[in-house]
Structures are given as C-alpha cells and as structure tokens.
C-alpha cells in the first residue's frame, strides 16, 4: 500500500469540502473498519503504559518505573524464551523454505498433469489442519508406547527396546527435531504454491534454447530454474522473517512441562506467566515482556521492509 498512486491521479481542483461531500458514502463505509482498528489495535497500544506499573490482577496499578524491565532482564526464563523464539523460528523458516523449494523443483519436473495435481492436493492438505489437530495427530503417532506408530516402527527395526520407548514430545533431546519435522509436514506443501507460481512464469523458450545448446536436466535447473526462483526465495524469507516474533500456537500446543527449557518462546512465556503462574496475574510484568517482543518485531519488520525495497523494489507493508 506504500506504493504511491498519486502520480497517476489527477489532483482534483475541487475545494476540500466538495471532495469530502462527494465521498460521504465512503466515510460511512470505512467507519466500522476504523472502529474495529481503534478498539482492537489502538486501545491495546495505550495499555502498554502498564509495563511501567505494578499491576496484579484486581489490585490498583502502582507506578514502578523500569522495575518490570529490570526484573525481566534478570530472569533466566525470559532469556531462554528470547533465544528459543529466535532459534526455533529461524531454523524452522530455513528448513521449511528449503523443503518447499526442493519439492517445487521436483513437482516442476513431473510431466503427467493428473499425477502432479494429485500430488499437490495431498501435500497442501496438512496446512488446513489446525494446530490442535496437528498436535493431536502427532501426540498419537509419537506416543511413547507400542501404540505409537514411530516407536513401534523403531522397535521392529531394533533401534528401540520394547518398554524403553522414546517420549519424543517430552524429551529434551527430541522435542526440537520433532517440532521441525511436524512443521515440515504441515507447511511444506503450502509453501510450494508461491514457488510453483514463479516456475509457471518462466518462458518455456528458455528451456528449449538451453536444450538446443545441449544443456541437460541438471544444467537447466541450475542455470534457468534456480535463478528464476532466487528472487521469490528471498521474498519468502524476508516476509516470514518479519513475523518470527509472533510464534505462539504451534509451540503452545506441542510443549509440555518436561521440555519448557527447549520450547518456551516469548509468547508462551507471556501466556504462562500471566495465566498459569498460580499467583495473581502480574499484568505489568508480562506487558513489559510483550513490549520488548513488539519492539523487536517492529524493528524486524522495518529491516525486512527496507531489505524488500532493495531486493524487489517494493516494501512489504
């Protein structure tokens, strides 16, 4: 939306009042949108002042200056959540994008249209499962008993003893690999759509010319397909990098008390500190954590927006 259409528009010479009158219906139409924006986005921004207050549950807020921030920066839980947010989301982003590119390149090589369509239908499917359903499905197949598919498979291969099954989602060692794999399962297929759109836009003459020059399948992929995808890959990385601080639901439904140190991210830290701490919810402290999260997220969006303008000539917002 930052792209300016002004140069295209003939600046109206009519007086402002007339222009407002002409557009009176539009103001009426935008009204509900503005009401929603103010209530659900702008009022909460005023709530940020509680970051500087001691505000517990039903008690009156008391101004405490930067006490909440001092407390936050001395908490091991906050730092581990901060590191986890970065690590989990960046590794997830790279792994998912990589998998989506590989699958797209392979899909692009399929010549049978029906087979291609069927494969696409199947690999898009998991994207629409909610995280609750995904977590349920994987809790069942990763179950640490012989009822779990993965454990009984490993037992039959002799990697795991019967009775010593691995509790994948409850083990410090396995939680993260399981998390990445579940994410690949859920999002890889959907991620291919944008790459497939780019691939569909490549001029087939380029491939024909390359064939005449004697290029094989591998060289065509390397010198035509991959360069064409490069811009899209960078775009996808930039767009998603801007959102990494929002990581919440996927972690929230897959984590449990045994793996908090490996899995807790800022949003889940905020949630559990507020609602599951057992004591009166300390809104002031968790608002402060949220403020730090929002500021980092804001910086990331601005950096990514700048990078996006450099790379593809238009911003992301």
């Amino acid at each position, binding site marked *: *939306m*930052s792209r300016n259409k*002004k140069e295209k*528009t003939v600046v*109206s010479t009519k007086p402002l009042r007339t*222009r407002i009158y002409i*557009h009176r*219906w*539009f*103001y009426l*139409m*935008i009204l*509900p*949108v503005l009401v929603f*924006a103010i*209530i*659900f986005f*702008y009022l909460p*921004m005023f*709530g*940020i002042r*509680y970051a500087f207050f001691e505000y517990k549950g039903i008690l009156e807020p008391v101004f405490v200056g930067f006490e909440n921030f001092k407390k936050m920066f001395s908490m091991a839980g906050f730092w581990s959540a901060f590191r986890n947010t970065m690590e989990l989301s960046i590794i997830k982003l790279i792994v998912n994008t990589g998998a989506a590119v590989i699958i797209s390149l*392979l*899909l692009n*090589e399929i*010549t*049978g249209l029906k*087979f291609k369509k069927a*494969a696409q*239908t199947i*690999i898009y499917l*998991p994207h*629409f499962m*909610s995280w*609750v*359903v995904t977590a*349920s*499905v994987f*809790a*069942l*197949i990763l179950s640490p008993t*012989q009822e779990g*598919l*993965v454990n*009984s498979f490993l037992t039959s291969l002799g990697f795991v003893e019967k009775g010593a099954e691995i509790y994948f989602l409850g083990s410090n060692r396995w939680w993260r690999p399981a998390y990445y794999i579940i994410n690949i399962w859920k999002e890889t297929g*959907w991620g291919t*759509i944008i790459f497939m*759109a780019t691939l569909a836009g490549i001029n087939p003459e380029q491939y024909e010319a390359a064939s005449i020059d004697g290029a094989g399948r591998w060289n065509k992929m390397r010198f035509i397909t991959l360069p064409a995808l490069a811009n899209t890959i960078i775009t996808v990385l930039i767009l998603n990098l801007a959102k990494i601080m929002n990581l*919440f639901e996927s972690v929230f*439904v897959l984590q449990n008390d045994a793996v908090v140190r490996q899995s807790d991210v800022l*949003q889940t830290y905020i949630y559990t500190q507020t609602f599951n701490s057992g004591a009166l919810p300390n*809104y002031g402290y968790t*608002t402060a954590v949220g403020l730090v*999260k*929002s500021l980092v*997220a*804001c910086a990331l*969006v601005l950096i990514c927006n700048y990078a996006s303008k450099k790379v593809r000539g*238009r911003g992301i*917002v």
Partner: protein
Amino acid sequence: MMKREKKKKKITLFSVCLAIVFLLVCFLMIVPLWKVFVDSLDLHTAYGMKMWPKKFGFDGYISVFTNPTLYQPLLVSVITTIAGTFIGLILSTFGAYVLIQWEMPGRTFIANMLLFTMIFSGGMIPTYLVINNLHLTNTLWSVILVPALNVYNLVLMRNFFEGIPVSLFESATIDGCTPVGIFFRIVLPLSKAALAAIGLMFAVSYWNDYTNYKLYITNSDLYNFQMKLRSVILGSDLPIANGSATANTVKNAATMVAIIPFMILYPFCQKYFVTGVNIGAVKE
C-alpha cells in the same frame, strides 16, 4: 505415470525415480492421518505398525457422538465461523473499496493507520485487558470480533479491487450509480473469486481458532471444537468409552471428527485457496 498416454514419451530412469519420490512424499504426508483413521476404527489394543484395523468397530465414534458435551462445542464452532467470516468479509471489502478511492480526503491517513497495526501491536496482555474491560471475555463476541479485522486480508482484497478497470466505475457514475450502488452492482459481482478465496481464509482461521479461545474464554460451555478436542487428547475430558472402545480409540475418533468435515470440503475449495495465495504473490 500418465505421461505414456499423453505424449508417448519414453519412461526414463529419472521419471521413475521422480514418481517414486512423490509416492513416498505423499505417503509420508498421509500416513499420520491414515494411522489416526485406522486406530479410530480399531477396538483391539492398538499396535503401532498396523495399517488396517484388527478388530473393526464404530464404538469409538459412538462414544464421541453419544456424548452430549460434544454437541455444544460443534455448534459454537459453526456459529462463530459463519458470523466471523461474514463480519470479516464486510470489513475487508468495505475497507478495500475505500482504499482505492484515490481522491478521497484522508485516504492516506486511513491507509497508514491500518498499515501501522501490521508493524506494531500492543501485545497479548494489553489486548486481553481491553477485551476484559469491555466485558467481552467469556462471550462469543470476543472470539468473533477480535480476529474480524484482518489487515492482511484487507490488503489482498484491495489488490484485487485495483485490478477492476476504472472505466467501469466512471461509466456507472455517469449512468447515475451511487458509490454504494457501484460497490454492490459492480465491485462485488466482479470479485467472486477473491470473495471465495478470502472468505475461505477467514472460515479456516475461525474454525481452527484456539489461541483466542484460550485467552478470552474460560467458561467451558463456550468452548469450540478445537478447545474440546484439546482437553480430550490431554485426557482431562475423555468421553466415557462406549462398548469395547479403548481410551486410545476414543481419542483417535475425536481427532477424526475434527478432520473429516474439512476433508470432504477441501477438494472443492482447493482452487480458491490457491487463488488467495496468488492474489497476494503475483501482484506487482
């Protein structure tokens, strides 16, 4: 696979490998769901490696469906999805239509006001406090209204509206059509694909919503199916197993109940979802 009929190409080693790779990929995508499906129909104590029920029976599903506490969550899911999608579409189309009025005084201000919310947010807790102070917690209004204004979807819609030729608006205005008339008679009928795509995106996010319920709803009478399923899987709220169904069978059956409605609708909707992604991506 199909290429033999199509182009009479030779079956090369590469195409065979490719087919095998994709069969494997599809198998890996399907196997978790298939396993849940099989176990939901199996009354025998489940053993992980089997891909077909040993002792076939519907008792798992009967346990789920004879449990009246599951009807209410399904109803909540349906109501919030319909209401939320409707309100979400109204807000995105109205907003998008106003944002393409380049001569409207204040348009830039409104656009920037909406875009700023994509850059910076108050955060989870201040939003919760606002909803709480408005006394919307533990009402379905919270889970319907909070996600209804989705600026990203609004921008997608605006991108689509921009593609409508300006000459159509101009000739309609000359014919005496009001802006509201243009919106209902020209813009909406020309945007069916975008309405379907963005409407489905709203519907899926409302149907799958868990976070907003977790934040704003504590009254279990107002849980949607996702919340209910979560408590069933965590074992805190397992429906009483009927007949010879085991706890595991019931859990699998409950998960399938959440998946099946979508599996039936999905093939019909797939192209609209893809349209939705492409409206956002192809736009230059």
